[in-house]
């Protein structure tokens, strides 16, 4: 067991003047006996271990004719492995209250595990079995496929799914990012057990594996647990390359007719790569326009002043090979046009004039201060550590984050607002919006 000397006390304390020193969080960089790297946070208060891990290669690895393969694999991983059939495997998990979850996005396969301390060896062994010897038995596959098809059938008349699918497929036509990872009714029906095995063999590997653990364990124990879970994986993955892309069809509006009282709207345009030097500035500017709090411009203009919607927001989405801003709202059909006009005007105003210094200061304060709230449970900490790792931000990122935010000037913010929001919008609407049809957005 080697262990890196790097052991960094995080500057969480600095966020809260006067806070107790007992609350410092330390990330340790560890290497397992077999050489797998991971990050560890020791947490003594609750007798559980939370693991989060990420493999490169999500739904971008799907054959377009078999879209949904990665997603179906994730759904099938706890349906039997090694000598254990589905029922036996589930019973093992449930008897020990071990929680496993698997999730597929476009770029990554993410997994998490939560277990009580006394069952951690068995928990990590069961995970290893799922990752290295999944069975994909025919009866379990057909049962899970039927659930997926049922969900996909529901989606065919759900305005949220219709607006979202339309946005992504129009923004990235013919590109893996244009497909939903859930696939379609047609593609889901074509997937075979061999396809799932093929995905597992290509993606589940020690190369580019990201591991984060939070628990009442030391580095030696954590290293051994990592090997228990991932030790048997092949060294290399075998991924198909994903071409660089940027959102197309900006300036267009697409209306999908579906008979619902409230139209669902997606709007968005070009984004910003995570490694771009302007990323953090863009993050702050987006927060001011349409971020999560009750004080964004869109929230104020669309909801508070006009009562046009219950929710409206906008976010940055970054992939490995593309980035977008995408927002959404839902509003009654006879006022959808009004809501869209307000949204388009606010985006234009942000592009042209940027935020005010007061808005910038408040957004910075919020984004600095609220970070600790995303690190208040073991599972959330583990997930956040994985995100920092796959975004290549460095083990000292949490320490550096406040400085990055403080460094943003109002000039930066105005420049980046223009860069981010000056490129035009693609708008999709699912519902019956009065007076709106598909076509070019008016200037």
């Amino acid at each position, binding site marked *: 067991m080697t262990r890196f000397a790097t052991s960094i006390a995080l500057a*969480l304390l600095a*966020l*809260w003047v*006067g806070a*107790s020193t*007992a*609350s410092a*969080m330390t990330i340790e960089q560890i290497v397992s006996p077999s050489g797998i790297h991971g990050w560890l946070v020791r947490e003594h*208060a*609750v*007798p*559980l271990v*939370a693991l989060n891990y990420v493999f490169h290669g999500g739904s971008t690895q799907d054959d377009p004719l078999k879209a949904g393969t990665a997603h179906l694999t994730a759904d099938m991983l706890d349906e039997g492995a090694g000598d254990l059939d589905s*029922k036996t495997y*589930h*019973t093992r998990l*449930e*008897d020990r*209250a071990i929680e496993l979850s698997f999730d597929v996005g476009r770029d990554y396969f993410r997994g998490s595990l939560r277990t*009580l301390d*006394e069952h951690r060896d068995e928990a990590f062994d069961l995970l290893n079995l799922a990752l290295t010897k999944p069975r994909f038995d025919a009866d379990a596959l057909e*049962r899970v496929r*039927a659930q997926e*098809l*049922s*969900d996909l*059938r*529901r989606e065919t*008349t*759900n*305005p949220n799914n219709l607006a979202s699918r339309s946005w992504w497929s129009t923004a990235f036509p013919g590109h893996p990012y244009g497909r939903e990872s859930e696939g379609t009714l047609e593609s889901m029906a074509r997937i075979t057990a061999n396809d799932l095995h093929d995905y597992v063999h290509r993606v589940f590997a020690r190369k580019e594996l990201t591991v984060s653990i939070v628990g009442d364990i030391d580095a030696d124990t954590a290293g051994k647990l990592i090997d228990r879970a991932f030790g048997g994986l092949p060294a290399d993955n075998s991924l198909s390359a994903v071409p660089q892309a940027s959102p197309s069809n900006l300036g267009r509006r697409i209306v999908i007719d579906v*008979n*619902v*009282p*409230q139209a*669902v709207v997606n709007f968005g345009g070009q984004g910003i790569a995570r490694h771009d030097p302007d990323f953090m500035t863009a993050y702050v500017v987006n927060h001011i326009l349409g971020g999560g*709090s009750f*004080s964004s411009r869109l929230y104020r203009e669309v909801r*508070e*002043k*006009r*009562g*046009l*919607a*219950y929710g409206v927001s906008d976010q940055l989405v970054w992939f490995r090979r593309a980035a977008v801003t995408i927002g959404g709202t*839902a509003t*009654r059909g006879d006022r959808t046009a009004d809501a869209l006009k307000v949204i388009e005007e606010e985006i234009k105003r942000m592009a042209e004039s940027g935020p005010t210094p007061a808005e910038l200061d*408040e957004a910075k304060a*919020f984004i600095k*201060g*609220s970070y*600790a*709230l995303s690190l*208040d*449970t*073991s*599972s959330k900490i583990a997930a956040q550590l994985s995100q920092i790792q796959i975004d290549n931000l460095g083990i000292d990122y949490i320490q550096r984050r406040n400085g990055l935010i403080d460094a943003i000037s109002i000039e930066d913010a105005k420049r980046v607002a223009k860069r981010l929001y000056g490129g035009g919008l693609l708008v999709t609407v699912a519902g*019956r919006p*009065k*007076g709106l049809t598909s076509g070019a957005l008016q200037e």
Partner: protein
Amino acid sequence: MGRTNLKTCKVLNVIFKKDAFLTAAAALVAVLAVSVLAVADEAADKIADFTLSNGLELVVIPDHRAPVVTHMIWYKVGAADETPGKSGLAHFLEHLMFKGTAKHPAGQFSQVVARIGGQENAFTSYDYTAFFQRVPGEQLKTVMDFEADRMTGLQLSDDKVLPERDVILEEQNQRVANNPIARLGEQIDAALFLNSPYGRPVIGWRHEMEGLTRDDAIGFYRRFYGPNDAVVVIAGDVDPQAALKLAQDTYGKVPRRTTIVPRQRPQEPPPVAVRSLTLADPRVEQPTMQRAYLVPSFITAKKGESEALEVLAHILGSGSNSRLYTALVVDQHVAVSAGAWYDSTALDLSKFGVYGAPAPGVTLPQFEAAADAVIAQLIAKGVTPEELARSKTKLIADAVYAHDSQASMARWYGAAITTGATVNDVQHWPDRIRAVTAEQVQQAARQWLDKRRSVTGYLIKDTSPQAERRS
């Protein structure tokens, strides 16, 4: 809204009794109990429960892992306390509570919370309305000051009220009108509760929401919001005595509201008819069935009954080892999904639910008959020791997992206390789950899963000709 997700955040700090003997299956539960106990040792005598002289209850749940606190204020008033004809008013007022006071104009509270990096929100159910902020520990007094101020200081004018009424109408669209499954749920509740206000949607009936006014909201506020029906729950990096001092300096200064009286809602007559209904919606591509039985909540149940229903719901319908999933989805292939749930948090009677979606080619009546057979089998033969042990393991482990989240802890205590339970009841929840016997589970199934106590709803596709596209 409506049925909350509190089932997922069972809690906590427990003192376990020693068992005289353990079966092999129960031994595992005992192992888990040890870890709960370990957690309990740290927190056991740290959870504090105070009552101020003006009647406000304060619960403090120390958790010093992060320098953050979750501050929640729960009012013992909800949709079930609305005057008939004013459905949606409790929830509307929850929205309007963000519209400012004489001391702090609209938006100032939210702005201050945002500036200190905090999060805030609010939610309404039948029996409670709650507001919360998650902020750095040293900002606790700030949010308590604001919250104490809006306990009696709310000021409303039509320029704020009317756009917000449009907002709740859009919320109704989003949650219900656009969502066939939610529409079916509303119809089932309306049919299940013959006399209780639980039959009205928390969000309200749309035609009544459209007519709610500023005066309605202020009248409801002045009648129901005060320290003597409020529970403040603070979880996180705070010392109980310090929290008490802060509460006295803020909430302690608010006088009692004399209009607040114990909640007495119309009660259900004994249910006698098997009820069923069908909702047809053109958007339905996957038919589903939902059923709700009228059953006791924790506070209305006899001792041990509510806990037996928790275990029953888990064995019958939680996860892929459950009776319903195993029989209908895995073995018989008549369903793509099937499950059951129970909600113990209600001041009056509560609900036990059974739901599922039939496999292609299987009709809803066929699905229902198969589900009924599973329930009948459980009533006739009871549950196995393995099932009982596995369910208890999972339910008790959830208590340990809940310890990992101060927000979950605060929410669980708040919901329990505002629906009639005490801090002590919550603390001993895992203990009571552990005491449930197989006989109690079978008896609960026999007594409560009686179709005459239930409404079964079918959601099907409406294939009648639809109105032309308006434009």
